[in-house]
């Protein structure tokens, strides 16, 4: 009997000692594999005589070239009586033809080359892109730069643009998740703010071709634009192409109109939009920070812990995993040229709406007041953000467009390193401090789209 017990004890001991090979130990072992040495690809950058800046990267894997060009312009610069002008201009540039070619001929030329072309203008950035087979580069880029620098604004296409915008505005109301985002912005910034206002049918109908021309002439000049391109080309030859297609474009210094500054305040307010739905769609939050605020890194870590991490965030664990109250819930602590937005988004069955809002408020209060962020939460958030950074480099086009955007928003070209180092330095105390300073659960704007009761 004693012998048996001893054998059993040895068996147990063995089981115990194999716990060195336990699942957690196995995972730890795999997590210790070092990263191989990685040399960042060298992006060519420079400025043409006309002021056009470029970021280029050759990549000959596929016979394809992608190009993106960004322009400092946007709806925040529209006169208050011409809301919708930037949107219409983006559409009109893409579809309105060029000085040399009627719209139908442009469409046909691009379609025959299987070129994927897009032009759009957002709140503070115009964004044009083209993807082509590399053999077509001369013809395709010639046409693409003509769209941007020598537009025709064919009246029937401008009219079509207006119809499309009016339809899009109407159809936005069909999707509660879009309505709630729109109304939340208006609630926080104010309905007439350049950062929230939306065109109306009347404002769009009143736009004139002359308005488009003036807006276009003012902003679409090479010194106000940045090109990023990657793919199957030779850099030197590519720069010559850029010179050829933009060299003769007239240039001038752009004077940007003053944009009314956002008033920083936090008040409890609610906006309800009644819809016969089986769920309530909720956005809750307040103003965030400006882009170059040095606390943005600590705030990103705080936000990851609160609600930005897939599934592992506090909001997701509690409201989805534990309570089954939502398919998706997430937070985003945003920054902008002026104050960005902090928001929590969720959709939940109609009768759970009030409960979920209380839960969100509770999580914000806990983050702000309790300061109970743990070392393991911090560790998880930092590692998630840092280990993912390598994906900035897994695609050549992504590398150059990212560089162009850093430049556009006033970061240095090596911002990637600054960002990485700053995230590495974030401490628990930093997270607690920024939560106290920047979260305002007592000044929440809440937009709800859902059934009336």
């Amino acid at each position, binding site marked *: 009997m004693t012998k048996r017990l001893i054998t059993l004890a040895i068996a147990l001991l063995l089981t115990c000692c194999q716990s060195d090979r336990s699942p957690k130990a*196995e*995972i730890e072992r*795999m*997590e210790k*594999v*070092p*990263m*191989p040495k*990685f040399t960042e690809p060298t992006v060519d950058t420079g400025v043409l005589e006309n002021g056009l800046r470029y970021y280029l990267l050759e990549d000959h*894997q*596929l*016979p*394809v070239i992608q190009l993106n060009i960004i322009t400092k312009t946007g709806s925040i610069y529209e006169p208050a009586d011409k809301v919708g002008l930037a949107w219409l201009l983006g559409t009109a540039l893409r579809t309105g033809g060029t000085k040399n070619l009627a*719209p139908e001929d442009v*469409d*046909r030329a*691009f*379609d*025959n080359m*299987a070129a994927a072309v897009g032009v759009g203008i957002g709140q503070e950035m115009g964004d044009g892109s083209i993807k082509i*087979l590399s053999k077509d580069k001369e013809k395709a880029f010639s046409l693409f730069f003509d769209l941007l620098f020598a537009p025709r604004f064919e009246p029937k296409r401008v009219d*079509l643009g207006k*119809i*499309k915008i009016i*339809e*899009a505005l*109407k*159809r936005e109301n*069909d*999707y*509660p998740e879009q309505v709630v985002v729109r109304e939340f912005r208006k609630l926080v910034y104010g309905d007439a703010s350049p950062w929230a206002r939306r065109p109306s049918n009347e404002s769009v109908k009143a736009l004139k071709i002359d308005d488009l021309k003036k807006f276009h002439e003012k902003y679409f000049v090479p010194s106000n634009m940045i090109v990023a391109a990657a793919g199957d080309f030779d850099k030197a030859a590519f720069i010559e192409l850029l010179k050829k297609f933009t060299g003769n474009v007239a240039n001038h210094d752009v004077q940007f109109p003053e944009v009314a500054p956002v008033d920083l305040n936090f008040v409890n307010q609610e906006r309800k939009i009644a819809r016969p739905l*089986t*769920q309530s769609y909720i956005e809750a939050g307040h103003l965030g920070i400006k882009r170059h605020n040095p606390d943005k890194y600590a705030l990103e870590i705080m936000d990851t812990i609160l609600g930005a*991490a*897939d*599934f*592992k965030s506090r909001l*997701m664990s509690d409201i*989805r*995993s*534990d309570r*089954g*109250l939502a*398919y998706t819930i997430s937070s985003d602590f945003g920054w902008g040229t002026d104050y960005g937005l902090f928001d929590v988004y969720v*959709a*939940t*069955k109609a009768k759970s709406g009030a409960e979920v809002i209380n839960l969100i408020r509770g999580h914000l209060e806990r983050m702000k007041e309790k300061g109970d962020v743990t070392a393991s939460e911090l*560790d*998880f958030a930092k*590692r*998630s953000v840092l*280990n*993912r*950074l*390598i*994906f900035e*480099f*897994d*695609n*050549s086009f992504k590398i150059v467009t990212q560089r162009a955007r850093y430049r556009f928003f006033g970061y240095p070209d090596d911002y990637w390193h600054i960002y990485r180092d700053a995230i590495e330095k974030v401490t628990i105390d930093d997270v607690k401090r920024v939560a106290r300073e920047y979260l305002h659960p007592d000044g929440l704007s809440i937009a709800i789209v859902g059934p009336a009761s």
Partner: protein
Amino acid sequence: MKISGKRLLHYIVIILILVSAGAAYAYDLEKDVTEFKLPNGMRWLLVLRHQAPVFSGVVMIRAGGADEKPGKTGLAHMFEHMAFKGSSKLGTTDFAKEKPILDEIERVGEELTAETQKEKPDEKKVAELAAHLKSLQDDASKYQIKNEVWEVMGRNGAADLNAYTSKDVTAYHASMPINRLELWMDVISQMVADPVYREFYTERSVILEERRSGIDNDPDGKMAELIGETAFQEGPYRWPVIGQGKDVAGLTIADARAFHNEFYVGPNMVGVLVGDFKIDEAKRLIEKYFGKLPSTKPPVAKEEFANKGGAEKRFGFDAEPASVLAYHKPTLPDPAEFVFDVIEVLLCSGPTSRLEKRLVYDEKAARDVSCADDYPGSRLSNLLLVWMEPNRPHSPDELVSKVQEELERIKREPVTDEELLRVRTKVMASILYSLEKNMGLAMSLAEFEAIFNDWRLIAKYPKLVDEVTKEDIMRIAKEYFPKDAAVKVVRTRSNGK
């Protein structure tokens, strides 16, 4: 995990573009792919790409909505959610202690589900069982680590970790830094080989929320559901991937386990890796982690269903109008598929395509027209579908008539040389464009291998499309688009306008 409405259509359109394009280009895909098969029958495709120390990987199972039975719809997707709940090693602090509680949860959950599925459930019994279930779940949670799959993958830099279920397949995917290749193997293999059914009943509620968002409250999701019901008289293409609400509410752990045991077997699975690894190292790890999957043969699904056209459905929704016109068609290996691919691009790809040019640009009658030629999946005979959104005051019915006129024209007149050349170029370019990103390439390879048992078809596709003639197009249009075969679904405002 996001399958709904407009996004569903977009997803299908993307896949279609892949399906309708290939490799008459200066890139030799076949030479880049290393393939091998595990003794259990699981097929693997490996592609080296060295631009950054990362890789993208996908494990795809030929199991989707097409494998479900009426009454148990939504099961493939329900299982997909469960795969993220961990295994006997992940998601638990002590599986030996957790297991008996999980068994009890399964028993009580089954009893509760049976009761709630009754026409007149006994409210008292339901309340008692629900309370019992809740207390068991609280007990179990003492041994559980919530969302550990997400935690481990997340802190190790996983990008695009997610999964999706379609009518044809279920896929699990993530990209990671290359030094986490073994971790990827370990975690993903546990998800598909050793799932533990934690938090099943909470997750069922989550899926019902997903259904509310994706179908009840989404005009396009609702439309997609009605297309299936209207076009198909029988077979699994009748219901949406997420399933019927009542069926989902009745699913049990035993259902999910049976589905897993039947379909998550070597011969039914495909893995793809694209990135900066070493082939030998990848093979060694694949054998170590995926070799444990069983080699049993999956059940053979019924493939023939007697579906025919000539149906119309009108419905009201609190949204702007839209309409769909669809026709039944065969799928691969029927060579008509390549002709449909040509027709789809001819009709709907770009501002010079016939429908976009006429309806959007010339007549300004539609704000958007889009086509899909393997809706809602590719394993069974499916639909060529045109989705239209009118500009007011044009009506959704007017758009349907105009599209029918264009289909008549295709029957009557040969397409021009320029059009045919354009279609071929577009098919070739669209597949090239799709290969640019590591995950895009991985997904294309996996889909072709899992659905058609032939990843090489991607490379052959442009040539097969090039062989389509003007006469083929007229012949197929006449055969498959007779007027009385049209399936029409029209959405108007709830007030009928």
